[in-house]
């Protein structure tokens, strides 16, 4: 796959169709794959990477990149195409300046999960019938493949590219992802248990803001958390109120726009299951206002920018689920 991508990128650069390519290169470690922009065939040959650790969604980088001179080639996984569509819908990116090649996605590996097994010095990994064979500087290691998968890929919602100019590889289908199972579980325990669950999770937050910075829906030029007059600007949360507030507001701001791309949970250094907050909103929207998948198209009205005269009243929250 990586070969085919590099070759196609080189062709498009050579015939002048694009001026730059956004893809990934290796960071400090072998498994640390980070988004990067390439401008020449030499750079592509030297650094371009697409492997099982390549999970980052590059669509948000296009907010800035697509406003620069010339055209840029972007490689998008199926989940990334939803983010891309949503950004078009919100007029955040200049579509004419981007050439999209759809590529097959995961399942991707999460190095943190491998490290959690005490395996370090990772150089590479291969799936062998459900067992992950990991090549490390200290020799070969093994672990169950499923346990090494990133959270976002375990509940993949779609292998289908919703937007592209051309595809490398096959397009897939929308999947039955069971992604609301955990949300449902939480809905069915008591309020006290839910409170305890979230206290344990949210109190780990160090307010690094990585979840906001990586989110393709968080593209505000002036974020409320950057505003020194808001009283909630970036700083370590001092108490449980601020922890709750940050997470409620962050998730609320992307409600109806979050494509469930999973980037926020992926980047959280504290492994806070942020996707559960986003999915709670998605689940509520689906059940109260009709099924809606952000990023599926570029024309539908976002559920929070829309209404029906016979929408349910807010009191519905008091009438259902477990208290």
């Amino acid at each position, binding site marked *: 796959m990586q070969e085919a991508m590099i070759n196609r990128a080189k062709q498009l650069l050579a015939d002048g169709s694009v001026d730059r390519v956004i893809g990934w290169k290796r960071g400090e470690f072998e498994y640390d794959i980070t988004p990067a922009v390439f401008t020449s065939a030499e750079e592509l040959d030297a650094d371009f990477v697409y492997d099982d650790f390549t999970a980052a969604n590059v669509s948000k980088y296009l907010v800035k990149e697509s406003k620069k001179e010339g055209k840029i080639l972007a490689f998008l996984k199926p989940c990334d195409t939803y983010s891309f569509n949503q950004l078009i819908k919100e007029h955040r990116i200049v579509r004419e300046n981007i050439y999209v090649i759809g590529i097959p996605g995961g399942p991707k590996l999460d190095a943190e999960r491998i490290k959690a097994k005490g395996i370090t010095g990772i150089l590479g990994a291969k799936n062998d019938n459900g067992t992950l064979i990991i090549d490390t500087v200290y020799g070969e290691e093994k672990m169950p493949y499923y346990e090494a998968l990133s959270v976002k890929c375990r509940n993949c919602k779609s292998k289908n590219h919703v937007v592209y100019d051309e595809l490398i590889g096959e397009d897939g289908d929308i999947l039955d992802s069971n992604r609301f199972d955990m949300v449902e579980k939480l*809905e069915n325990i008591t309020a006290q248990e*839910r409170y*305890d669950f979230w206290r344990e999770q949210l109190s780990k937050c160090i307010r690094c803001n990585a979840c906001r910075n990586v989110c393709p829906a968080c593209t505000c030029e002036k974020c409320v958390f950057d505003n020194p007059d808001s009283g909630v600007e970036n700083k370590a949360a001092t108490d449980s*109120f601020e922890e709750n507030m940050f997470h409620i507001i962050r998730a609320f701001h992307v409600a109806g726009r979050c494509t469930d791309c999973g980037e926020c949970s992926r980047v959280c250094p504290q492994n806070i299951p942020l996707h559960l*907050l986003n999915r*709670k909103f998605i689940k509520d929207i689906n059940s109260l206002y009709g099924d809606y998948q952000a990023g599926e198209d570029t024309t539908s009205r976002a559920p*929070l920018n829309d209404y029906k005269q016979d*929408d*349910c009243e807010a*009191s519905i929250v008091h009438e259902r689920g477990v208290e």
Partner: protein
Amino acid sequence: MQVNDNKEFQPLIVAFCCNWCSYAGADLSGTNRLNYPTNVKIIRVPCSCRVNPMFILRAFQRGADGVILCGCHPGDCHYTSGNYFTRRRMTLLFSMLDFLGIERDRTRVEWVSAAEGAKFAATMNEFTEAVRKLGPNRRLEDLRCRKQ
């Protein structure tokens, strides 16, 4: 006004009222000499949809034990559709608070017209009682703001 019995827990209730209906409704309940608890502090907003989720959280942070949002009845908003947007926003916000384990009876939306002074008073009495039963807000409070 009712005289509060100090031994009982006195919840602080913040009521966001839209200028065109609910605030006028509150006024009417006053001119009609209907009783509603002094626990209720009214914040006037131009329209119910002026209320950003942060306002609700901020009210809790600053010591509210319950927050109620009042606006014109659906279809009657001075700005035509503001309260329809409010309704979706607050439904989702309250649901999220519930998901985080915050007591669901601390939040409410109620539609009160300018002619419904009696409904305003009744709503406030009822809501204050419901919040009194829950006791002080501990799950969404900011310790730095706690009154001793």
